[in-house]
């Protein structure tokens, strides 16, 4: 027995208190549910931390990264519930269907073409009763460099035309052609131009320009039925033809073609993105951001916020409570009065105020978030300190404390050996109970517009509300519901654990069988 005693680490009683508490929580159905949920949350968080790039927060806030996605699109799986979905298609082309020199001018509709011409072509099949949102053509890979023909530097002028050939045979130019150089073509996104497309639609389909312009994709991918130019999706096979014309004034186009081909210059790889009417597992927001990634990123952030805030508040509350109860006197008075004050502070307004102040500061998103959480912690340890103090007072009055003191035990030893281990079950319970508070506080602050810049569930929800507030439809359920549900599940996990842990603290709540 005595040798065992010697081997024991000073933290052993604390460890055993933890272990006992765990068993007690697992023994209850609510605790079991909570622990299983917790394992899921932690597993997803670890997965996210490993898989996501470390700069995901800045990627998320960079709108340019996302504009190849459809905007405000519901998730793709709605098709399994019978909703029509126009497929989101990414088509990569790395070879022209034709690369030819035309010495005589020829026409596509009223567009005159001449010289070195490359054609690329892709097919998109619309097989459901929905309209794709848009088309985007990205020149993903373009060879560029200097071209010298007979000792003269030549800079070819490039014009790109994107035609949409509809199943009904009509052909519509969808971009506003502009003159580019090889260098400016590299990485260029050719976008749908509403004015050009609407003008062509007027000529080919007899729909007035100003009508077509408003919902251009309805007329590009639809046919007019009935009055008032109502449309319905035109199903069938669409081909997207990209014509690239290279022209250098005063240079024989045959020479231009030969030298460009030998040097590997010009368009090499083109990505055509037909933006569908639905996207991914969780849909997109108004910047085309994949909400699935944002929601995934929310897991580790939410856990971090909740656990950091809860651990800090509980540690401060414990230290303050034990000191207040054990030492008494002036220290006790000071701590109790402080608790009186912070207990009466209207917490939420002060937190919003601090959030509004902090969002103007020039610090990183993480620092901003942690300043807000730190203030939350500063104002939320009071209740625990009062209870720990009264528990400390009653433990202090026990005869064994007196015995320990008589044996010459120091105050520190008494606190760590005899007092804190008894407080641990209670602290665990209040730790678990205060996790959801912090998560909900962060979400709430985000929802009313305090921006720290990290993609959290609250900030995704806040953007949905901003979108609705700016005149968007309330119908964006995939954007509103998942963040709230995830906040709820995470909070529920800790509420269940807390309720289970409560029976340790309050044995009278245990069910008598």
């Amino acid at each position, binding site marked *: 027995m005595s040798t065992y005693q010697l081997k024991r680490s000073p933290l052993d009683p604390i460890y055993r208190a933890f272990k006992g508490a765990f068993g007690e929580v697992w023994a209850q159905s*609510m605790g079991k549910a909570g622990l299983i949920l917790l394992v899921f949350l932690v597993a997803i968080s670890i997965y996210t931390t490993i898989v996501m790039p470390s700069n995901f927060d800045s990627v998320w806030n960079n709108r340019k990264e996302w504009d190849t996605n459809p905007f405000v699109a519901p998730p793709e799986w709605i098709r399994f519930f019978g909703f029509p979905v126009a497929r989101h298609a990414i088509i990569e082309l790395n070879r022209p269907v034709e690369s030819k020199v035309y010495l005589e001018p020829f026409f596509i509709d009223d567009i005159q073409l001449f010289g070195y011409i490359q054609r690329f072509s892709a097919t998109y099949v619309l097989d459901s009763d929905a309209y794709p949102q848009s088309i985007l053509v990205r020149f993903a890979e373009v060879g560029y460099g200097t071209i010298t023909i007979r000792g003269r530097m030549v800079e070819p002028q490039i014009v790109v035309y994107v035609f949409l050939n509809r199943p009904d045979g009509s052909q519509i130019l969808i971009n506003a052609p502009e003159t580019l150089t090889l260098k400016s073509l590299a990485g260029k996104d050719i976008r749908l131009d509403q004015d050009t497309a609407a003008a062509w639609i007027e000529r080919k389909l007899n729909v007035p320009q100003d009508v077509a312009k408003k919902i251009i994709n309805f007329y590009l991918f639809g046919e007019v039925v009935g009055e008032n130019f109502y449309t319905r999706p035109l199903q069938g096979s669409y081909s997207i033809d990209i014509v690239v014309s290279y022209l250098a004034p005063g240079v024989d186009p045959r020479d231009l073609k030969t030298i460009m081909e030998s040097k590997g210059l010009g368009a090499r790889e083109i990505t055509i993105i037909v933006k569908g009417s639905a996207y991914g597992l969780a849909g997109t927001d108004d910047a085309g951001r994949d909400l699935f990634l944002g929601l995934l990123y929310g897991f580790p952030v939410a856990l971090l916020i909740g656990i950091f805030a809860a651990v800090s508040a509980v540690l401060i509350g414990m230290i303050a409570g034990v000191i207040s109860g054990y030492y008494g006197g002036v220290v006790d008075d000071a701590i109790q*009065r402080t608790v*009186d*004050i912070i207990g*009466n*502070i*209207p917490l*939420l*307004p*002060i937190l*919003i*105020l*601090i959030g*509004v*102040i902090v969002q103007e500061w020039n610090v990183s998103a993480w620092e901003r978030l942690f300043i807000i959480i730190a203030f939350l912690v500063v104002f939320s340890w009071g209740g625990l300190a009062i209870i720990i103090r009264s528990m400390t007072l009653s433990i202090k009055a026990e005869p064994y404390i007196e015995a320990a003191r008589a044996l010459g035990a120091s105050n520190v030893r008494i606190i760590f050996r005899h007092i804190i281990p008894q407080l641990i079950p209670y602290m665990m319970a209040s730790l678990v109970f205060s996790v*959801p508070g912090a998560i*909900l506080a962060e*979400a*709430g602050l985000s*929802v*009313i*517009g305090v921006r720290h810049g990290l993609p959290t569930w609250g900030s995704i*929800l806040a953007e949905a*509300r901003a979108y609705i507030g700016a005149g968007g439809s*309330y*119908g964006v*359920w995939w954007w*509103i*519901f998942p963040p*709230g549900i995830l*906040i*709820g*599940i*995470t*909070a*529920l996990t*800790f*509420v*269940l654990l807390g*309720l289970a842990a409560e029976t340790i603290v309050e044995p*009278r*709540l245990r*069910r008598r069988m």
Partner: protein
Amino acid sequence: MSARGRIPRILAKRAILLSVALVVIMLLTAVILGATGYDEKILKAIVVTELQAYSQALRQQLKGSGEDIEKLIKEREQFLISYYGLDKPWWERVIPMAFNAMILNLGYSLSEEVANIAGLQPPVRVSDAILITLPRTIIMLTIAQLISIAIALPLAPFIAYRRGSIWDKLSISYAAFTNALPIWWLAIVAIYFVGFQLKIAPTSYRGVISYINRFWEDPFTSFINILYYAYLPIIVVVIGILGGWLYSVRAIAIRVVSEDYVFMAKAKGLPERQVIRHYVLRVIAGPAMTLIILGLAGSIGGFIITESVFDWPGIGLLYYAAITTGDSPTIIGLVYITTLVYIVARFILEVLYVILDPRVSL
């Protein structure tokens, strides 16, 4: 000295402590506004706008020499800077700011959004803005609190009495769910389904302003319209807070139902209703009253996030508008009024404890 004789002294001590807490909270708020440069930024903006208006007026009135106008503008700027205390460091503004609020000299708000919520034209007296928005918060939140209390108070003791039954489990699960789901999210969901899909409630609630402000012009129509606006927020808040009420009243009642004298009453064969009414409800009345008074006092301060989700023009939305538009006078006024209400409620509780239970020593 007898126990009764000590009561005034005890109460006086508590009153002093609570007042000190109030003063410290006001100073703290003023320090946060001052030390972060929050109020200074706004004051400077106010000076700039006032100067612009002043110089425009001057140029219209006297089309005279430019130098005179420049001089007058400079003088005016100096006056404004010293009027708003911008020539002094922030810590010299803290005490006047807190002191003025405490003597209810709340000043004026220049924020258009604050005026908008009150339904007035800026500048608005802060006290007016608070007095106008307070009844709206009472209509929504205080009524929701009262409904929840009216449901929970009779129901929770029965649930506690049948501990472990299906009703008990259901009420705990319900409390756990509503504890985890924020009320403002329930509000978003409710607006989506009831307002947007079914279209039997509004999706924006600010329209209630005109019916409340002009209630007496046509009380009946106003009442119907207010009801139309208020029913969904009230239902949502009741759903959101009822779980907490059930859980906490149940927790109080559980300690009582496991007491020996309740066991004794049961053993005597008294009907359940009578046991609960005479042996349980009477005992839990005290602690339950604490919850009720603090809950009602808290509801006066508004639910900032829920009100802003509904766009319900109450105290919460006023808080929100004041904070986001940088309106220090309204912020400090609201902090003072809501904290004061809360602290007064706590003092009333102290008095009630002492009067109802002379054994309580503080």
